[in-house]
């Protein structure tokens, strides 16, 4: 690395420092201004986390039942299945044997999933 390299990039470095200073200086001034002049009157209600006027109660990290989550996943899978079934039904007469068997295997897998969820009791709501 020779001195020519540094000479070329020095203006860019100076510009970058200037740009950073341009962005940081107002922030620093605002911070200093608030340190000196902002009227501080903290209190327990003012420092509360929740700011809708209502008091927050209990913990947010509570265990909750995931039934609806499984229900939603199952719904999503069968919804996507319906999208696949429509072109399958439209092109049914023109399909080759291989394509028909592949589609039937796909359906069989899904039916198997349905049987599993049914026996697991997920489809029964709480």
């Amino acid at each position: 690395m020779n001195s020519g390299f540094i000479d070329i990039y020095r203006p860019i470095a100076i510009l970058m420092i200037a740009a950073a200073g341009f962005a940081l200086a107002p922030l620093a001034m605002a911070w200093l201004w608030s340190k000196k002049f902002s009227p501080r009157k903290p209190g327990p209600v003012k420092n509360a986390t929740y700011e809708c006027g209502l008091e927050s109660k209990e913990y947010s990290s509570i265990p909750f039942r995931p039934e609806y989550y499984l229900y939603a996943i199952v719904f999503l899978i069968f919804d996507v299945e319906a999208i696949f079934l429509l072109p399958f039904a439209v092109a049914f007469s023109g399909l080759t044997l291989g394509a028909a068997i592949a589609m039937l295997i796909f359906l069989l897998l899904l039916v198997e999933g349905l049987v599993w969820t049914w026996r697991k009791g997920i489809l029964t709501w709480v």
Partner: protein
Amino acid sequence: MDQKLKIDLSRQGIFTTTLEELYNWGRKSSVWPLTFGLACCAIEMIATTMARYDLARFGAEVFRPSPRQADLMIVAGTVTKKMAPQVVRLYNQMPEPKYVIAMGACAISGGPFKQGYNVLKGIDRYIPVDVHIPGCPPRPEALMDAFITLQKKIESQHLTGADRPRHLDRDAPSEFVVPQFGAHDLEPSKNPKLWHILPVTPKDQCTLGENGPGKN
């Protein structure tokens, strides 16, 4: 600063100001209200911000959805006793300096529901109100008049001395008591440090006679 000297200087084309004036000018020109409506007065408040009345002309178009960013609470509507603790808590959560406009008959006194069991008889029982607007509901012009009155109040405040604004007074309380639901009423039913019946003096009646609705 001497007013006469200031006027003389301005005649010579020299503009002078004081830090106090500059500070108050900044405060009064950027009063951001809290997005907060309680009843039908809120509709008039919304109309005030829209193009026809345009509250933005006074630097107050930025309605903040969070009390942390708001300077002004416009209590627009009926304050039920169930809502009162929330109103006081929101006021407590606003940063200093903060102001309150009680808009409409309900907010200043309970209005037509004053005799009811469930309506607070004026929000000034719990929080310090700067400007009261009568009316049911007050027209947008009335809200703008209240806003200009508030701006004049901010403008005339001195930053030092006994009448300095609350936020510069170290002894002024940072928060006001939030009422709790009691067996029959809110407890306490009012903040005794704030709420007191103002005596009507003959002087007040005189000024009412001069500037009352009859003359204007």
